């Protein structure tokens, strides 16, 4: 049974070693003028919905939970944030071309309507980020008013 202890020890060492790798820092203290909520003067209640359910992965400012400092969880989070921002970044939305803005709006509406977003893995942990059927309807109705 000694090999079991050896494996366990190796794993522990590896896990401890991983913690020395830096975690992400997607944070900024200022809200740029290109921010979606600013440029479209989004109503307060809907803005809060976006902040809670979307902005952690889709903006330049993530509210990191304590466990994000633990690897490999930190990496998983950074991966989500990186991909999220690539696909849609609310902080930079106002700087997108009009064509790109319209494309993104269509995608947003479709993903929220279909229940694809926010990600189930995200809302599983972040209960407040869950969108009820009514929330989705309100959000989609609002986004449709911005569509051309």
């Amino acid at each position, binding site marked *: 049974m000694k090999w079991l202890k050896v494996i366990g020890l190796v794993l522990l060492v590896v896990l401890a070693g991983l913690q020395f790798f830096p975690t992400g820092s997607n944070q900024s203290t200022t809200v740029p003028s290109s921010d979606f909520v600013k440029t479209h003067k989004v109503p307060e209640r809907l803005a809060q919905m976006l902040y809670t359910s979307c902005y952690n992965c889709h903006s330049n400012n993530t509210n990191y939970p304590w466990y994000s400092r633990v690897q490999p969880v930190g990496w998983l989070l950074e991966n989500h944030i990186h991909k999220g921002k690539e696909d849609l970044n609310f902080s930079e939305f106002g700087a997108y*071309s009009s*064509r*790109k803005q319209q*494309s993104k709006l269509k*995608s947003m509406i*479709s993903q929220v309507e279909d229940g694809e977003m926010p990600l189930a893995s995200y809302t599983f942990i972040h209960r407040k980020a869950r969108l009820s059927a009514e929330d989705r309807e309100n959000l989609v109705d609002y986004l449709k008013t911005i569509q051309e």
Partner: protein
Amino acid sequence: MILLSLALVSWGAFAQHDHSKMDSKMTNKSMVQASVKVNRSQSASIIIDNYLALKDALVKEDSKNAASSGKKLFDAFAKFDISAQTKQQQKELSEIIEDASEHAEHISENSGNIGHQREHFEILSKDIKDLIIITGSDRTLYQAFCPMYNNNEGGAWLSTSKEIKNPYFGNKMLKCGSVQQEISVK
């Protein structure tokens, strides 16, 4: 039980809709000219080739080939040379290509999810049309429109033929749609 089956059957009979009257329901957001002329040019040939291959794959419900055509299209956009255009056109073109590339990329990353690929294809089709208005084309194209796609919001696509083969529904509703515009070469 009998009543239920009767109800179902009569509902089924009503649900078969008549496509011949669909033309008059052709609502899209802007009035479309019956025909436009564009410059003769080979510059967008590869883009058009790969777009049409993507379209054909969607008609055949072939999500895997749609994804690979999407990748080829994405690569073609990356290599596309806009330097021959005027400054104003270059700005417009780079915005079109930026948007179209993203849609091509999403299509290439969604093999197995044809619904999602079709969503991106719809916007991509508009981008490609806008692109060739500026760059010109090497062949006559037809813009067709299906009013039923996406909860009756409709969706358009480009084809080299006037024959309707619907990429949004495939063989579920192959002939739904009609030609809106002919894009011919000067």
